[in-house]
């Protein structure tokens, strides 16, 4: 689904150059659920933006669903975002003046096909909000807003779901509801890439990638046993993990990294 080779992204900030991504190699096969963790500025958002066809790499190649985006036209990129990628944001990013249904309809508006509200209603149904279709975002709770956002992301039945801290603005109970939906979508065959700060969210993925200073520093498969292990370490270090060292390769008890050869 995603194949990145020698992926590098540099930003110019005034006179200095920010090296957001450096020689990242990554392969995410179809149907995989990957979580990306890392401190702010570690490059995870930049990577998401490139995978989401919102940005182009400085060098290296990226393939999304077999299509190289480096040389792709803006129009093709927009089409790819519309058809094959669904975005979920931390702050929901719903358009406040329109109803839940209208928000879900927006991607359909940009799909240059016959237009009907049916897929939107179906998508709302999938996140269990078809009864709130006429409500405006201001009349919905945070969890409901995020579910509308998910419905918007999946309305065009994309193959790839990119979620940037989807539970970051929600309490843990609502967060669990959102994760349930994410799991459901994954079970339905969708490839999911999820960026998060929260360990208990990250460990729910099949695969965890940790980033630091624009590089992948750890990449591991997660099963039930490792899940508990990671959570224990994370609790011990009082959430200051990222500022110290990689938690996925702790000196105490090393976890065998399962690097994917790309």
């Amino acid at each position: 689904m995603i194949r990145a080779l020698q992926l590098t992204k540099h930003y110019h900030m005034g006179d200095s150059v920010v090296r957001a991504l450096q020689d990242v190699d990554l392969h995410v096969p179809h149907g995989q659920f990957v979580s990306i963790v890392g401190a702010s500025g570690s490059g995870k958002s930049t990577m998401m933006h490139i995978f989401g066809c919102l940005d182009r790499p400085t060098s290296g190649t990226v393939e999304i669903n077999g299509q190289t985006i480096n040389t792709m036209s803006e129009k093709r990129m927009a089409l790819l975002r519309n058809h094959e990628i669904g975005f979920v944001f931390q702050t929901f990013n719903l358009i406040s003046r329109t109803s839940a249904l209208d928000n879900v309809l927006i991607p359909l508006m940009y799909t240059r096909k016959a237009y009907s509200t049916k897929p939107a209603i179906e998508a709302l149904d999938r996140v269990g909000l078809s009864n709130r279709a006429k409500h405006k975002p201001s009349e919905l709770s945070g969890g409901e807003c995020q579910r509308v956002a998910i419905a918007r992301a999946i309305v065009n039945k994309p193959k790839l779901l990119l979620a940037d801290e989807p539970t970051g603005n929600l309490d843990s109970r609502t967060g669990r509801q959102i994760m349930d939906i994410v799991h459901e979508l994954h079970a339905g065959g969708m490839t999911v890439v999820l960026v998060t700060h929260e360990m208990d969210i990250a460990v729910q993925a099949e695969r965890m990638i940790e980033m630091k200073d624009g590089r992948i520093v750890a990449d591991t498969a997660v099963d039930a046993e490792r899940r508990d292990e990671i959570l224990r370490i994370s609790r011990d270090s009082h959430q200051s993990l990222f500022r110290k060292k990689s938690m996925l390769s702790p000196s105490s008890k090393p976890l065998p990294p399962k690097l994917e050869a790309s």
Partner: protein
Amino acid sequence: MFHIRLLFTAIRGLQQNLLRSILATLGVIIGVGAVVSAVSILQGAQRDVLDQFESLGADQLIIVDGKREHGGVTSTVRALAPVDAEKILQENAELVIRVSPQYQGGGQIKYFQQNVNGIILGVTETYAPMNSYLVESGRFISREDVRGSTMVTVLGYGVAQDLFGALPAVGKNVKINGKSFVVVGVMEKKGTLGFMNVDEQAIIPLTTAMARMFGQRYLSMLNVQCASAVAIPACTEGITKTLRVSHRIRSGTKDDFTIYTQEQMKQRFAQVAKIFGVVLYSIAGISLLVGAIGIMNIMLVSVTERTREIGVRLAIGARRFDILKQFLTEASIISLFGGALGVVAGWAMANFLGEFTQVLETYTPPSIIIASLIMAVFVGVVSGIYPAIRAARLDPVQALRYE
């Protein structure tokens, strides 16, 4: 491809900041309104005046005082005397059918407690036939009245109505500027004739007006009816010759009178109308420009405010062209809506002015309505294009981060 959704999206975008949208619309309303009312007034005036010229007749000439330039100062020369009228007729007998010398003053016409202010027009017996202006009751001023400077008057229809109502006016005594006159006739209802509302005037013998009423030696104007419209050039030439001799003007010196034909007056008016047109259209154009700047301003604010929304739209598959379309649609709605209201406002304004002043005739040509709407949309697109391009050019990553 244009989705009806796009229209709804744009309308919702405008609804969100209703007051702001209305203020932006107001700029266009005023702009388009100014254009429409300016055109209506100008067109109305033009129609009105052209009608007047038509009523003048193509075979008629108007002679008025000339202009003299002395040391850069232009002044009017008063030189037309009653005797000129007779000379013109005598010396150009085969070209001129009749001459109507006139003296025009103002005054109060009073009948007991009733009084009106109107035009006091001194004429000879030729005035009525020349203008195909008929007496409704009684008789018109006669040659004997003029010769004898009699104290008789023929009232305009409106004056008679005001003073006497339904009662017969003929035979009654009225006071004009304090002097007693016998009403010998009442004219038919005519409206305007030669730029004057003749219904609101009292007609008295020319000699009475000049000698006994106003104490003047010179005429206000001379109206000449030529043998035919074809004879106008020859007629003009003959009259010029007669008047130059009569006024003892040496060769090489300019005339001290001006002869206008219907055609010349039309041209002169067209010139004046053109100047007024330029002024009015400039003002209207400026207000439209202000309206356009208003839209652009609002759209720029709107783009900045909705940066994040634009980022989200781009992220979920909008092409840059889609964003451009959205903002251009918003600008077009503002301007089209403003344009439509502006047409109504302009039309209402013109009509109000027409009613209020009682002088202005207004006419709103249907073409201007269509032109205004096209112009309004043009303004919307032009003023919306820059903000829309700014919106479409936003970097999606930065737009998504925008707080």
